[in-house]
């Protein structure tokens, strides 16, 4: 998307052999995550327990989903700036729909299911338009998706008229904040519903439902990118678009699919947001965009396309999530998070330049 890259670089032999560099290049991110986690475990009281791990994953789901969305687009050599506001748009649309269906007389579970499903279908529209602009009209991804950001922002605000979307049934909050098991003192185990206990009695909550849903979705898309023909085509397009055309890959259709998929994942994140926070707002995902793109880049993908995997992207997202929670729990203002994410982002790309590993 830009021309600053001059092709082959003179790589200085920072560290002896190419093999050693490739070894480090492939693994430093994981080592970084482990060191970072260890640091906070020792440094921050109460960080090393099950609960903070759950909190970390629970509040990270939006970033995880958007990072996967962004990864697909970045592998093709593009960028999707609209995901954050598509998230907000979907959070509002889902609430409006569910409330509407509920008022129409549908029972709450059905209204939630139907409203969520329709939102996911509507959520394809921004992506299809993005994909059409990029693939068929040749609009640069940066511009096309920034335009879509504006459109989603505007439509969202029009839908809610400047306030929050609200009014979800209680069931939504129960699902959004629910856990699989609840352990109460005295060996009481309860599935899905919180056991009735006296005030002040600690109930151990295990495995948030949302996190499991997110993990399944991320797993499915990891499989799609790695094993399916669609995934192989995407790498081919990002690696060399001309060659992909000559190899008979329907590049335009694939690009359309990638942007639709990105916007689908963003709307899923939006529906999840609505269930978690029982409200929807236009800028719900505005500040997550940086985290999502940073996660992909820290995970070793190239801005020019053709590289990146879901697993590494998740490591990148976890680095950010651990940093955020760790800083929060140690009482440091979160301002430091932005500085550190920015610095890690640049560091990661420099590492990728000097120690590229041989991989897809």
């Amino acid at each position: 998307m830009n021309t600053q890259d001059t092709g082959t670089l003179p790589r200085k032999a920072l560290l002896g052999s190419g093999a050693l560099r490739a070894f480090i290049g492939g693994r430093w991110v994981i080592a970084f995550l482990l060191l970072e986690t260890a640091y906070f475990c020792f440094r921050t009281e109460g960080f090393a327990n099950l609960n903070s791990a759950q909190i970390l994953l629970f509040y990270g789901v939006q970033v995880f989903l958007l990072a996967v969305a962004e990864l697909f687009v970045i592998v093709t050599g593009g960028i999707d700036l609209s995901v954050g506001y598509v998230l907000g748009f979907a959070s509002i649309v889902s609430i409006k729909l569910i409330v509407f269906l509920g008022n129409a007389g549908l029972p709450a579970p059905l209204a939630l299911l139907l409203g969520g499903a329709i939102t996911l279908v509507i959520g394809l529209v921004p992506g299809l338009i993005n994909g059409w602009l990029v693939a068929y009209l040749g609009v640069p991804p940066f511009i096309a998706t920034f335009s879509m950001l504006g459109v989603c922002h505007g439509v969202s605000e029009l839908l809610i008229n400047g306030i929050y979307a609200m009014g979800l049934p209680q069931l939504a909050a129960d699902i959004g904040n629910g856990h699989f098991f609840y352990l109460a003192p005295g060996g009481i185990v309860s599935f899905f519903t919180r056991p009735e206990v006296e005030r002040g009695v600690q109930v151990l909550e295990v495995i948030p439902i949302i996190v499991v849903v997110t993990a399944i979705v991320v797993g499915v898309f990891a499989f799609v990118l790695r094993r399916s023909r669609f995934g192989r085509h995407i790498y081919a397009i990002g690696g060399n678009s001309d060659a992909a055309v000559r190899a008979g890959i329907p590049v335009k259709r694939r690009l359309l699919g990638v942007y639709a998929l990105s916007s689908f994942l963003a709307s899923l994140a939006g529906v999840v947001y609505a269930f978690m926070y029982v409200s929807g707002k236009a800028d719900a995902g505005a500040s997550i965009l940086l985290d999502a793109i940073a996660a992909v880049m820290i995970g070793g993908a190239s801005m020019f396309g053709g590289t990146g995997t879901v697993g590494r992207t998740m490591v990148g997202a976890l680095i950010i999530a651990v940093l955020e929670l760790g800083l929060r729990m140690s009482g440091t203002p979160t301002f430091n998070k932005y500085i550190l994410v920015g610095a890690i982002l640049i560091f990661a790309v420099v590492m990728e330049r000097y120690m590229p590993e041989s991989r897809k």
Partner: protein
Amino acid sequence: MSDDSGGFLATGLGRSLANNWAAFFLLLMLVVFSMTGQNFLSIVNFQNVVHLQTVPLLLAAAETFVIISGGIDLSIGFVMGLVSVSAARLMQAFLASGLPVGWVIVLASGIVLVGSLIPGLINGIIITRFKVPPFIATMGMWGIANGLALKLCQGFPVAGLPDALPEMGNGYFLYALPGQFMSLFGKPSWFPDARVRELWRLIPFSLPFILAILAVLAFALKRKRFGRHTYAIGGSMDAAVRSGIDVDRHVIKIYTLSSFLAGIAGVFNIFQTGIGNYTTFSAMYELFAVAAVIIGGASLSGGKGRVWSSAVGVLVLAFLENGLAISGVQPFYRYIAVGVLLVIAVVIDKLFPNLR
């Protein structure tokens, strides 16, 4: 896509229409809003719009240079916030140490303006020496600048600055009450503040300020070697290298200039509001600056763009917002309109690739 070389485009009118469609669109918009909105067509309104667009104009000018060179600078919005907040903090410190107000303002502004070169210098070095794509390098700087700004101000705008700041920043050259009096450079002190709206206030200080800066930048881009090299790098990096341009050095200069202009915007921001403001995520200054530059006819692939066209792009967005608001349309349509305009701009660019 289509080859119109022999048709309408070949005529002088056609060329200039396609070349300057943003300017024509701006004119059309002014005419339409003059009819739909009460008091849209007035000196007061136009002055206000331009005055409030000083910061976006500076940022768009910064982005123009970067985009012509084929890069992008996502950090300018947050660099501006960082400069604004640090200038405010410095002023507080100087005031506390008992310096006279005039010196406080001059010293603090001077120091932060010099300091505002640093983010751009770092961006340029990371981009050229480490071959990090501009998008990522400046995005990292966005995070760093944002974090530093928030750290400096602890998440609150910095207040308690000299009153002289907003008076200067929002002052006009001429104040008059028709038929009674006229005064230059300031409202007469005996005139009550409550009735200030009855005064005619003409030519805000910000107008010649921004015009001068834009003129210098436009001159440098169009007539100077600096500008020629910028176009050359954006047109073809390889050709620029082969023709002996020190590309790395020049790219560093461009990002430093961009960051410096963001610094000027940050200082101006203090003069305009009287407080040190950090930049919020939803402001998206840098993205709207890019939008203005693209609407002005530049291309993200580099080699194209003009300072004055970018300024027209800023005014298109500004009058769109202003006109819609005055015509009683929900302000949120503005976001949608920006998106549509951007796509139109790029499609026009694709349809007529041979325009400058």
